[in-house]
């Protein structure tokens, strides 16, 4: 019984991480119809922001040594700046382009960022230990749960609640939801396009930084492709959740996280290496059964 509970907590914490990442992808998709492949690299940048840029083999902490509130803010600001630069340089000239062109452009952007990181920091993974206290287990009754998992779940729930409040109550939030529903109409009613898109990029970058730090605590190593896998999963999560639906992105993130963890436990030993094949196979099946995703966004329905 306790082990089942432990697996469940594990699954929910993985799902929380994926849900946050998926939300970051989904926010930008909502307003810009941009499938942002570079999102994974925003996540990577969040961790590389902690160390001094150098090609040395060992990581020299700079921001990483700061007290945690400052560290989070600094890392988030750096990622936001990178995201805004990307928007300004690449995506703004492409505002009129089709989603396919945007997608390919972000693919190119991702390639540029990754290789820039390789040039600046060297391609080898570097070990970074931040917040060692989180690795200790917390006892809840009979359960001993790694503190990191509890923190991940709490942070995710907190951010989700904050985001819901922001989207429902604040002026920018309402504008963003309007833009996600019908961008043309929103603009004609006086919503500033670049402000809304900029806000979406900033929030998305903030989420990327948080995901990055939580993920870094888990693995303890930075590498230039650390965000790629998370980005892929976030993507898939937004698609099966229903592109354009933020609730769908969160649901998709939790579905993949929980499904993947349970598969890991339940698959027989010799099939365990094939876990990702099962997860991505399931994605194809979900897409076939519900091409619009689990939750259909109102804006996604095709009008003729």
């Amino acid at each position, binding site marked *: 019984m306790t082990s089942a509970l432990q697996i469940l907590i594990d699954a929910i914490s993985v799902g929380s991480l994926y849900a946050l990442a998926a939300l970051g992808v989904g926010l930008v998709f909502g307003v810009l119809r941009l499938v942002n492949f570079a999102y994974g690299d925003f996540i990577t940048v969040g961790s590389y922001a902690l160390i001094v840029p150098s090609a040395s083999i060992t990581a020299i902490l700079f921001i990483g040594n700061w007290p945690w509130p400052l560290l989070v803010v600094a890392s988030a600001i750096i990622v936001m700046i990178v995201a805004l630069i990307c928007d300004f340089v690449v995506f703004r000239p492409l505002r009129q*382009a089709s989603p*396919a062109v945007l*997608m*390919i452009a972000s*693919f190119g952007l991702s390639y*540029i960022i990754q290789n820039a990181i390789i040039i600046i920091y060297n391609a080898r993974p570097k070990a970074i230990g931040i917040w060692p206290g989180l690795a200790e287990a917390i006892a809840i009754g009979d359960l001993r749960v790694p503190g990191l998992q509890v923190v991940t779940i709490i942070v995710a729930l907190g951010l989700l609640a904050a985001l819901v409040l922001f989207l429902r109550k604040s002026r920018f939030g309402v504008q963003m939801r309007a833009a996600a529903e019908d961008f*043309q109409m929103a603009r004609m009613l006086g919503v500033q396009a670049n402000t809304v898109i900029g806000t979406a990029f900033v929030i998305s970058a903030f989420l990327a930084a948080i995901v990055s730090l939580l993920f870094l605590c888990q693995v303890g190593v930075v590498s230039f492709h650390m965000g790629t896998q998370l980005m892929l999963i976030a993507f898939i999560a937004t698609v099966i959740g229903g592109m354009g639906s933020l609730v769908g992105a969160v649901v998709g993130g939790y579905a993949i996280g929980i499904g993947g963890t349970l598969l890991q436990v339940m698959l027989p030993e010799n099939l365990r290496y*094939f876990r990702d094949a099962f997860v991505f196979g399931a*994605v194809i099946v979900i897409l*076939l059964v519900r091409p619009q995703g689990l939750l259909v966004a109102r804006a996604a329905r095709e009008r003729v």
Partner: protein
Amino acid sequence: MSRTTTLGSFLRAHSTPIVLSLVLILIALVATAAQSSSFDRTVIDLLIRVVFVVGLYIFIGNSGVVSFGHAAFMMIGAYATGWQDCCSMTKSFFMPGLPQFVLDTTVPPPVATFVAGLFAALFALLVGAAIMRLSGIGASIATFAMLVVVNVVYSNWDSVTAGTSTMTGIPAFTDRWVALVVALIAIFAAYLYQISRFGLMLRTSREDEIAAKASGVDVVGQRLLAFALSAFFAGLAGALYAHFLGTISVNAFYLDLTFITLAMLVVGGLNSLSGAVVGVICISALIEILRQLEKGIDVGSTSIALPGGAQEIGLGIAMVLVLIFRQRGITGNQEITWPLLRVTEKPGREQEIDRAHTTSPPASRWRHLSKLIKQGGVP
């Protein structure tokens, strides 16, 4: 009209594949004359990529659906080649999971190449039957998921694919001329397909899926046909690649390959066959130049070298710049025709479809209006 003018006008109307072939033949001849083994390898590499990217174009260019999954077909082709003709002595040792008849037979390389293409096409038919029901981004993501699934399976199915370790001992069959011949076949096949009624139907669905359906085009079926045909050439490219290097490993057929080949297609122009070939040539040239610069060039007594990774960044920047400033690619999505004899005949029907979409009065008026609205000035 005499017969010769009819033949002449026919050739002029269909000069695109001939011109493209002549360009590739010229490149191969230059490689023969240069007698430098490293240049020769670059050219063979280029020709193999032409086969792959033309294959990619057959699907993406005609259907308008971006596929991230074709690297999987190339891998399937490459491994299918290895299963057929590699290392007859050690095959049962490295890949004991293969069926007995595969272990016992060693197929001559040309046959193995062809069968590898068929194998990839068959796989595409099976997977595509499901994926082709989707449209737009959903379809792209599904091809991506397919790439991941195939990659994970081939990486871990040790008894059949030798896992992440490399498969070695594949006979070196691909030389300059073999690669050239297959590239020419790919170009002519792609051209014939795009002017066939199947190609035309698929192009209509690219421009307006709903209108195409309303006109009786079986969009899913046509996409599936193009998907299988394009997978056939991706598989052939994989076979050529395996026969060229003699060793293959799973890692060669993943995101990097996907990126570079898509970049080639985008830079050349997504919607034209000429774009596919021109893109491969331009990007290959760019990669080669950057590679030389990374090695360093001597300026006076000092040697200046770009840092490692500059090659990839240059490639990424080239792609993004083309997307921003020339969204239709270098060729502008037009086909290259015989430059000396201007084509005065009616344009090919596949270009008419393209043109109708960009120049018909209602469409252009609508575009103009929506552009105005987007800029904020309500008409």
